[in-house]
């Protein structure tokens, strides 16, 4: 989209405001719709908020995990490299549904007494670990794309390895990694629907319940699909604007 390139700041602002208005305002027009949508308007809005909540928490944690594990994969310390390799191998090689069920059913027996995780927390943990593994590869590719001369220049100026990473390598690698990270985020919006399996009442679960009560799957699922499309549009506008923001000083 052109205007996200030209006015990235405004586009980010608009996408965020739009998302908030949509999440807390959509029940109003939906309530005016005929049955089976109208009576369930508040449920749809609640479900959408849970979906966005899962996406934001797992998306943020996933980026942090991705940066740490991406760095770990490039470490010269082999146990760390091995650990991060195994993590990515394990997560990418098993179904997300299995990971969600595992966290939900297996964690309570591993966790120390007295700590109890809600269904929502279990879903958030599993989704974070899952997207984190995919992000790891994006971040690693981004770091490898930073020319070595940039690191040499920073080190020659006296910057410490940490300063070199934070001030030079990370911002430049994010420019490369962001389109792929945005892709993963768009997947995450929809993958969060698998949380229904552990009885988290997110958007897809709401749809399933409403159609089961009304026996009218077509209008219900079309509404759910429309809500997902609006959510993913908001998220991709946000990431596209962020991309434009980071794109300064880049050859076109």
């Amino acid at each position, binding site marked *: 989209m052109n205007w996200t390139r030209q006015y990235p700041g405004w586009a980010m602002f608009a996408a965020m405001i739009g998302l908030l208005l949509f999440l807390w305002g959509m029940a109003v027009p939906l309530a005016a719709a005929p049955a089976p949508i109208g009576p369930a308007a508040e449920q749809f809005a609640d479900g959408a908020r849970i979906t966005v909540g899962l996406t934001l928490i797992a998306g943020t944690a996933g980026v942090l995990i991705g940066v740490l594990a991406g760095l770990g994969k490039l470490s010269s310390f082999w146990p760390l490299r091995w650990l991060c390799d195994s993590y990515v191998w394990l997560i990418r090689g098993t179904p997300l549904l299995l990971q969600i069920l595992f966290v939900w059913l297996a964690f309570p027996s591993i966790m120390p007494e007295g700590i109890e995780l809600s269904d929502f927390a279990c879903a958030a943990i599993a989704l974070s670990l899952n997207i984190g593994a995919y992000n790891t590869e994006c971040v690693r590719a981004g770091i490898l794309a930073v020319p070595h001369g940039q690191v*040499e220049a920073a080190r*020659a100026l006296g910057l410490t390895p940490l300063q070199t990473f934070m001030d030079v390598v990370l911002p430049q690698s994010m420019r490369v990694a962001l389109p792929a990270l945005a892709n993963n985020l768009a997947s995450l919006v929809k993958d969060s629907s698998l949380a229904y399996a552990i009885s988290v009442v997110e958007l897809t679960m709401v749809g399933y319940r409403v159609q089961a009560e009304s026996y009218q799957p077509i209008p219900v699922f079309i509404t759910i699909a429309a809500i997902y499309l609006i959510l993913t549009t908001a998220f991709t506008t946000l990431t596209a604007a962020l991309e434009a923001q980071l794109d300064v*000083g880049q050859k076109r």
Partner: protein
Amino acid sequence: MSSDGTLRTIIETRKVDKRFGTFHALKDVSATFYEGQVTAIVGPSGSGKSTFLRTLNRLETHDSGEIVIDGIVLNDNLKNLDAIRREVGMVFQSFNLFSHLSILRNVALAPMRVRKMSREAAESKALNLLERVGLKNQAAKYPVQLSGGQQQRVAIARALAMDPKVLLFDEPTSALDPEMVNEVLAVMRELAYSGITMLVVTHEMGFAREVADRIIFFDEGVILEDTTPESFFSNPDHDRAKAFLSQVRHGF
């Protein structure tokens, strides 16, 4: 040169040896450099001149021998290395400006991070240095918007921002279009007369002859000649140097 006419040693290398696999890049190189001196390091490609320069701030580690810079021994001790890198500036063949930062931020970054200057102080210092290299009006641009010659002048300003005692130049004009070489040499000439210690790996024989106090000729990892420009260009001792000079003169 200090006031009483004696030269103060600023860099001393003793039997510095370096191999890349089976390639013997530096063979027991010993040399002493004095404060305020401008040394041109010349020689055929692969002769070890750039490697020698890069060992002086440990962008390459030497295998054996000793390097002492301003009284500090260059070794695995990170404190020593940080101290040396603060005092030794470097200008690269490919400029290596930080592509995600504006020209002003490129110059101001190291004083802020390494010298802990405030942002205002670092940026006003950066503006002064940009004025010195004739690029004050480009401060808000990004590296990619500048010509090669302008980028290299920014790189010189960036190195100067740390107030280094020594400036290392690694073929600073080799990546430039011919019409941009002179603007960079002009800045370097002005620096040379300002009394800063400079080690310049270069193929610009005219510049070496005019500006350098001393010429070092590298061949196959050893210093073959270490003399004044007059005697090097008019009457070199070694046949290899004669052959080299006749080759580079061909280009004129």
